């Protein structure tokens, strides 16, 4: 279904839905310190949360995430926290779908007519 990440009030949420598997946490460079001893973080089979991420860390993390096919979404923190707790992806999927419908449709220029 999807690989997503979101940033809310300094927390980075990385999550998957459907049959997608969360990326290996070692994919992030060690120097970034995201899942190290000095950060508060949480992982479930569907959501990884890092708290109080610095802007610099966030920028580099986004590069890694995009390289692994993760898309940025802006879901409410409450929905993501609830997803972490119970793994019920329905409410997250609904929100993702809502977000996607709110985005302007992508149009493809058909080019000149013959």
């Amino acid at each position, binding site marked *: 279904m999807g690989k997503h990440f979101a940033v809310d009030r300094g927390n980075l949420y990385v999550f998957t839905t459907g049959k997608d*598997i*969360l990326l*290996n*946490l*070692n994919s992030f460079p060690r120097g970034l310190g995201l*899942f*190290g*001893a*000095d*950060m*508060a*973080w*949480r*992982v*479930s*089979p569907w959501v990884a949360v890092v708290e109080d991420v610095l802007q610099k860390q966030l920028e580099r993390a986004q590069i890694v995430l995009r390289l692994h096919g993760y898309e940025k979404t802006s879901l409410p923190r409450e929905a993501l926290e609830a997803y*972490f*707790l*119970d*793994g019920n992806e329905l409410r997250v999927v609904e929100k993702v779908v809502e977000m996607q419908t709110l985005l302007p449709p992508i149009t493809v220029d058909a080019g000149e007519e013959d």
Partner: protein
Amino acid sequence: MGLTASYLALALGGLYFIYALKYYLSTLIALNLLDPANPVSAHFMTAEEEPPSGDGAPFVSVHLPFYNEVNVARRVLNACVDLDYPNYEVLVADDSRDQTLEVLRDSEWRITRPIVKFVHRKDRGGFKGGALQQALRYMHPAAEFVVVFDADFVPPPDIIGKFLGVYEGAKAGGKPVAAVQGYQLHYLNRNENWLTKGVRVEYSGSYMVERVAEEALGAMKMVSGSVFMLRADVLRGLGWTTSITEDWELTLRMYLEGYRVAYTPLIQAPAEIPNTVSRLVRQRMRWAEGHTHAVRRYFWRVMLSTKLSLAEKLEFIYFAPYYLQSLFFILGTACWIVSEVYRRRPPFWTPTLGWGLVISNFLAIPVMGLAGVFLEGDLLEDYSGVFSFIALSIIMAPYQAYAALKGLLEGEEGTWVRTLKTGYITESFIGLKFRSLFRWLKDVGLSKGCGETVRTGNPPPWVPTRRLLSAACLFLIALPFLDRVAHLIGLISGFMVPDLVKAALRGMMVG
């Protein structure tokens, strides 16, 4: 000086004798209850209902507090993801600073069943209680029960079902049950050195004898840090505190709310034993300090509460100076030696009373330990641990006493000093999936499908060990008073025998 020492010796010896009496009576109760010949035992120990399964199985959250557990983290995680229960999650509350984090970052935990969650904190605020509170915050909302294991434990596959079965059975009688405590089987490295042998016997006495008696008498029982199951609603309501003995404080708060803790030796999870004196000393000092500090804070609330029964309050009074009892014994014995040197004694003092108190007090806990390993079927293998345990008690006494006094007098608790787990195992039963541990259950007719393991660690059946241990308990209880008893018999016979003799002689003459 001699007279003062003798009075002091008598007071301290008498005080410790109250503890000794409890240990002897507990031993008698456990030997009687866990006896296949006793029909009451089956009723007492098989309050176990069939555990719920399938769709009716309540959601259980298994909490594992970690702090630098690199030697054992993978072992306990592997055991926990392999539990034979359909509806549960594993939640690691981690404060590690070492390579334990490598284990947690491993992707394998995110593709297994059940759900495995890791919650890492960047500091150790609140120590273990703080970590468990964090686990409580992030556990599955549907969780009805919480099961806690320390990182050095290896829970057997059927443990959740057993917890639920015992909980269902215990619910039936008395106050509402908030927790079920199982047996912390400190066993994995029991043959590592003299120390581990001694601690093995100590735990056996505590969990196979003392707590069994407490359960039988309806006394207060502790939730003891690991191998216990709590009702999630109760835990959500009370929460964990940041005490260095968070388990003891939770116990007191549960009892103050009108709940009780059920204990069963039928649920066992093997664990490591601290393998150096310094590690053990640090662990016990933390227990002594935190325990006494909590006693000080809760003493009057517990004593004045209407929600605790008399038996629970009596047990609390017994618990209160628990970590000072070794000091009582050592000081009492020292005073007695001084009084012997000066040959000054109270008028009612007799050598039998003095020696009797020393011997009876000295042997109380070792006899309880022996009874414990006997009931587990390990007497022949583990009896030598009693000698280590005696030595250990003497080594520990001043440290425990110092820490207990610190807890009693200081305003703030000290810091949590962790006990290093090495991951070292000396026993080879892992491959048997712990079934052989339950052989003693089979012998007392309590096992359910535990296999055909034959008891090998106890004396042959023609040695009446159970009776010998029971007789030893009765003799040691009576020992300090033997001369009084003899004197009483003498007095009675002084009145009775001449009459009888006279009557006999008269009869002969008449005849």
